[in-house]
């Protein structure tokens, strides 16, 4: 895994996710950041990340709308949500749209590590 794209409208949360990625054992990866779904879509198309870690609720374009746009492109990179919204309905919607996992904030290093390792093993 070389490039991880972190998409969140909160700068503080992007910092936390990036730090947790490093603590989870992926410190060698290049971190790319985007502040909403639209920026994230452009970043996926331009930089082909190996993993996308995306918030759900964002201005401009939500994480779910981003995932749908990537589905329309026909090329969805490994994709996981990190969001404060963890209802069963949202989780089902995310997984049906092609997300590999949904982690609910607040989250731990182990939660991210398990999700990404699970994705790599699949």
């Amino acid at each position, binding site marked *: 895994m070389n490039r991880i794209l972190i998409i969140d*409208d*909160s*700068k*503080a*949360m992007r*910092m*936390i996710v990036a*730090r947790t990625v490093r603590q989870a054992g992926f410190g060698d990866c290049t971190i790319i950041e985007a502040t909403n779904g639209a920026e994230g879509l452009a970043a996926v198309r331009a930089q082909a990340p190996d993993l996308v870690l995306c918030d759900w*609720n*964002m*201005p401009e374009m939500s994480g779910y709308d981003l995932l749908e746009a990537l589905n329309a492109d026909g090329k969805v990179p490994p994709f996981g949500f990190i*969001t*404060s*919204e*963890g*209802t069963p*309905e949202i989780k089902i919607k995310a997984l049906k749209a092609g997300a590999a996992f949904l982690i*609910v*904030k*607040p*989250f*731990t290093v182990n939660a991210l590590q398990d999700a990404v390792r699970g994705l790599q093993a699949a």
Partner: protein
Amino acid sequence: MSRVAEIRSLTSSIWETMLGLPLEEARETALDSGPTLMGSVRITGAWNGKLDVRCTPSLARRAAAAMFACDEDGLSDDEVRDALGEIANMAGGNMKALLPQPNALSIPVVVDLDAATPAPSSGVCLVQFACDADPLSVQLVDQTNQEAKVTP
């Protein structure tokens, strides 16, 4: 679990897990007597209302420093507001899942309050904390019935 217990649990979890700042429950806070920052998210749908996180500017800066992993002095005001907004977003997102479905969560907003800002008079579930000596309050304001009155 009562609403108060839910707020207490999710707030403590956010502050301890994401910020490394343990909270103590407090009977009352000193937030009415000085400058206060408030991060707020609205929840709309089968339940209508908002969740507010209020604290002193100094505690907001301390929380932001924990999130950004840097010195408090190195943070801009925008970064402090961003951090408090994200704290409100996490609390609101977790609370949203415990309220009648379906509902939607807004993008957080952060505002300055002063002592003259009126508090909601009804439908409020308020939980007060202290982080060391710094006060913090989280309140869930149920406006479902109020909105039903003004909506034809």
